[in-house]
């Protein structure tokens, strides 16, 4: 993946981070390849 974004790849981990850090979630769905 050509990206400098520190992506979460797990829904529950993202939710936990959002709750812990007071942030919103930017969810990007993609098609591999």
């Amino acid at each position, binding site marked *: *993946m*050509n*990206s*400098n*974004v*520190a*992506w*979460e*790849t797990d*829904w529950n981990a*993202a*939710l936990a*981070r*959002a*709750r812990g*850090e*007071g*942030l*919103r*979630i*930017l*969810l*990007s*769905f*993609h*098609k*591999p390849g």
Partner: protein
Amino acid sequence: MDAVTYPDPELAAFFNREVVPLRLAFDDQPLAERMHLRFTPYFLLLDAQERLHRRELGFLPPGELIPWTLLGLTAAAMYDRDWDQAQRLGQRVLDQYPSSFAAPEAVFLRGINRFLASQDRRHLKELLEVLTERYPRSIWTLKAQPWAKLK
């Protein structure tokens, strides 16, 4: 998105600082179905309680995805009735991305937030005036037309 948008350093810094960036495959079930996915790329701005505040279908370059995300954060602040924060976020779209497709909506939301914070209907008429001057062909200018009758 992987060729143009996500390698962009400004976009990466913005995402890493201001949201939890979450990347899932199109067939990640049951989430894909729960989020009404039918095509990619597909973006959603959600809060920690899983409430949806904005979604978009189709490619966006960095100069559009950043202000699009700022508008999503604006919508989430409005949901929380945090008018000051909503105004700050919307203003960033206008200061940093005034030529983006998100800018007319930012003018619209800024006026709405000023109205909600003050209950002063002059803000609604003012937002129509700004939109008419800067973005006469925007759908947000059309949406503000009813306020032309305000005194």
